[in-house]
């Protein structure tokens, strides 16, 4: 574990610099154990791909003199109480229309990977997926467990606009874009679900530690669900 301050209002504990599903799972457990303690000077607990950050209120009267040292001991305590935790216990079902109208990069991925276009969606929907981190924009999941046969690098030139709901892949992961934003991943389909809605409870469709099942739907079903 490598502890580093992120300025004087956050600390980051890194558990390796390679993505590892088991490590990631235990981070989700740690995050829950830390959040449950509701420590008044901690504002945010953010589990990431292979580390965990806490953001603090730098003006809180109870802020410890060394946040770094206190965080380290909190982590050790959390390790003990978190040992039995396994994922969030949730399975999120995500309907995806893999029609080429939405799957803008299916052809290119097929050429790169030699997997036939119609097999890409089957392989994608069949795999066991796990939310490794939610970040960048509200509700945007980084989902691990992509079939290695589908692995493609990030696109050399990012798109200036990824349509909201785009389901996209890069390296070993899948992402679902909640908003129309620029993005460099290859698009294989689109979900009609609203990924983030501040008026909904819970606001975010995905949370770290969730298992994800992608379900292929037709264009007619897509339009009905929208």
């Amino acid at each position: 574990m490598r502890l580093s301050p992120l300025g004087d209002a956050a600390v980051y504990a890194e558990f390796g610099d390679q993505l590892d599903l088991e490590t990631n799972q235990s981070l989700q457990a740690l995050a829950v154990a830390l959040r449950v303690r509701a420590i008044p000077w901690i504002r945010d607990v953010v589990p990431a791909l292979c580390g965990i950050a806490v953001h603090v209120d730098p003006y809180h009267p109870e802020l410890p003199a060394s946040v770094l040292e206190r965080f380290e001991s909190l982590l050790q305590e959390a390790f003990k109480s978190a040992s039995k935790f396994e994922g969030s216990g949730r399975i999120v079902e995500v309907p995806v229309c893999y029609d080429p109208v939405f799957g803008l990069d299916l052809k290119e991925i097929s050429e790169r990977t030699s997997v036939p276009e119609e097999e890409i969606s089957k392989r994608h929907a069949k795999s066991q997926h796990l939310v490794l981190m939610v970040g960048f924009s509200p509700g945007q999941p980084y989902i691990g467990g992509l079939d290695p046969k589908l692995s493609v690098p990030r696109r050399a030139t990012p798109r200036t606009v990824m349509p909201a709901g785009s389901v996209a892949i890069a390296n070993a992961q899948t992402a679902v874009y909640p908003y129309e934003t620029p993005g460099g991943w290859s698009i294989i389909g689109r979900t009609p679900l609203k990924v983030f809605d501040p008026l909904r409870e819970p606001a975010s469709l995905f949370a770290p530690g969730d298992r994800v099942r992608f379900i292929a739907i037709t264009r007619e079903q897509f339009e009905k669900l929208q």
Partner: protein
Amino acid sequence: MSMRILRPGLLTTVQDRGRFGLQHLGVVPCGAMDPVALELANGLVGNRNDEAVLEITVLGPEIVFESDALVALCGAEMEARLGGMPMPANRPVLVGTGTVLYARRTTLGSRAYLAVAGGIALNPMLGSRSTYLPAKFGGLEGRALRAGDVLPLVENVSSLSQKRYASLRNKKDIAGLRTVRTVSWSAPTLTLPAREPILIHAMEGRHHELFDAAARRAFFDATWKVTPDSNRMGFRLAGPVLARAEALEILSEPACLGTVQVPANGLPIALMADHQTTGGYPKIAEIAAADLPRLAQLAPGGSVQFARCTLEQARDLRLVLRQRVDAALRSLTWGYQK
């Protein structure tokens, strides 16, 4: 019980202290870019510091108050008139129904804060009234204010404002007021740039060692200019190109308010209130929390130099700033406690 926007200015949004506890779902705190000016503005009108105010950017709005209201304008200095008279800044001002605030350009600093007694009575979204522009929620419909917008104030804003003002002036009854009144004292400004380049303290970032020796030196030696495409998400800094020793890809990891990240083009970006919660660019530095409100007051074209500091020095800077804010708040809120 409202104020109506006649002209919105360049970028006027509703902001409060911020939206905490949701960064693990990709939701960043947002909130006032200059939290010190926010706290002073709320304090001047007798609000607790969890009320929402208007954040006014560079070009000010024109606003009509549709009820009596105790207001305060803090942060950037700007040409502003109230009912045709120059508006006194950094003090509580009682305005009568129908008074027009006519704000022009900021003359020092770039963000001014307008607080009203009782706060802006919009419903909080996910625990905060702050406008989150990138995801379009919070504040008023998640967007910057437009001409014709009506911002709700608390129902008893007239009586509340009169009562608070009366307690400041030690008078019992000031009803029937139809002009502009204020007090003879003002709060200090604590975050405006005295002269440029402003000096901002920063700690070495987690990935400082990934940059070559020239880049590591240049970051703390150069004078950086805030470019015009800077916004509430990040301040883009123009200066020497910061090269990396080797072009290593790093995994996406949490990013913070004040993180200085360097994309492949070598030009640093200081992450501000609306920043993304995670990022995959290396972090060359982290700005001291106490100095962020001053950086937020720098307008595009403004210049900044970074001074290397340690965690301990950053903590001392925070303590000094906190003492100054507390001292200012103590002297200005005494009248409300009677």
